[in-house]
């Protein structure tokens, strides 16, 4: 058996109303200790009000080699952005 524990990714909500954000990782043998380690490591300076931990092995990531096909097609869809549309200045609240 490996003598170090599996890796967990740590996400912190810095204050109410904000999303959890990835801040780093910890090693831990199980979910409860992963939370304890995340708390002790990543919230020592009042950085958070809520924590998520996820086994790193369970994260599914997109492949950077497919970045072109995945993300570039969105570049031409400028009509999805509000600035694409011309509305006269005198029209308010739109």
């Amino acid at each position, binding site marked *: *058996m*490996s003598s170090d524990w599996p890796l967990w990714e740590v996400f912190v909500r810095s204050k109410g109303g904000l999303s959890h954000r990835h801040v780093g990782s910890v090693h831990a*043998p*199980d979910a409860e200790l992963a939370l304890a380690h995340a708390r002790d490591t990543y919230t*020592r300076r009042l950085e958070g009000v809520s924590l998520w931990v996820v086994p790193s092995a369970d994260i599914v990531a997109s492949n950077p080699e497919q970045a072109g096909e995945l993300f570039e097609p969105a570049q031409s869809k400028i009509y999805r952005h509000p600035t694409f549309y011309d509305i006269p200045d005198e029209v308010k609240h739109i």
Partner: protein
Amino acid sequence: MPFEPEHRRRYIIHMYTTELQKSAKIENLEDPKLLEAFEARVAADEFIEPKDWMPEAYRRTLTRQISQHAHSEIVGMLPEGNWITRAPSLRRKAILLAKVQDEAGHGLYLYCAAETLGTSREQMIEALHSGKAKYSTIFNYPTLTWADIGAIGWLVDGAAIMNQVPLQRTSYGPYARAMVRVCKEESFHQRQGYEIMIALANGTAEQKRMAQDAFNRWWWPSLMMFGPPDENSPNTAQSMRWRIKRETNDELRQKFVDITVPQADFLSLTVPDPQLKWNEEKGGYDFGEIDWEEFYAVVRGEGPVAKERMKARRDAWQDGAWVREAAAVHEEKRRARKAA
């Protein structure tokens, strides 16, 4: 050891990372198109992320640099940890504990950053314990009096900050993000050290003696932390190109001396260098020759307390093996019970 003058041997030396360079020119085997695209991204100050293509030499150099930076944080806990139980007031005890704990945290962030390059923390720790991996030479010096805790915070952390601030913009994303955290947390470390020195410098004759003695012992090793002179640092150019190093050893060293000397004056401490002299023309201090033979000896593992440091780390890891195993076995049992 081959009989070769030290300065002609090739070292990869950064603030926290010092190792003989063993790499062949692997880059030549890489796909030139991918390599060119990679170099262009780095030159444009883009970040490289874990799953991105990168040349093997970049991956290896970074793994080495980040893991040795992590080792330095962990070994660096020991000289200061030596004084936690003897800190002279409740306030100092809490500060020192928090600082040494921060170093554990920094080691943890950095190991995790290095792990994204494909080497496990366990492998890195084994490399440290077998003597294969190096760590900053500075931590192979002993902490003899309480003043050493002040001197380390002031000088060693001061030198480290100077090196680490530019690394927040290093090209490898996980490393840069870890360094942002490290720098944010380290900002109190140097100040607490200097505050200790102020108390000693304004204290009794015995305290002043302690302060000067610690300053004498830590000054030169602190200057050595920046690594060998630029002309003997053959990898600087490539590391600068790859944005894993952003200023040269000599530039940083000069900056450190210029900032630190007035701070020593404020404490009425004498810089232990008779050749130290303000040079109006260059707008900085000239200073004496660093004893590079001593530096290379410490790199080789011949530092005054190198054996103690390595023993302490190996003991902690070995004594902790049953704890790590027990928790892992408990989790297996729990899963088995749940599945049944």
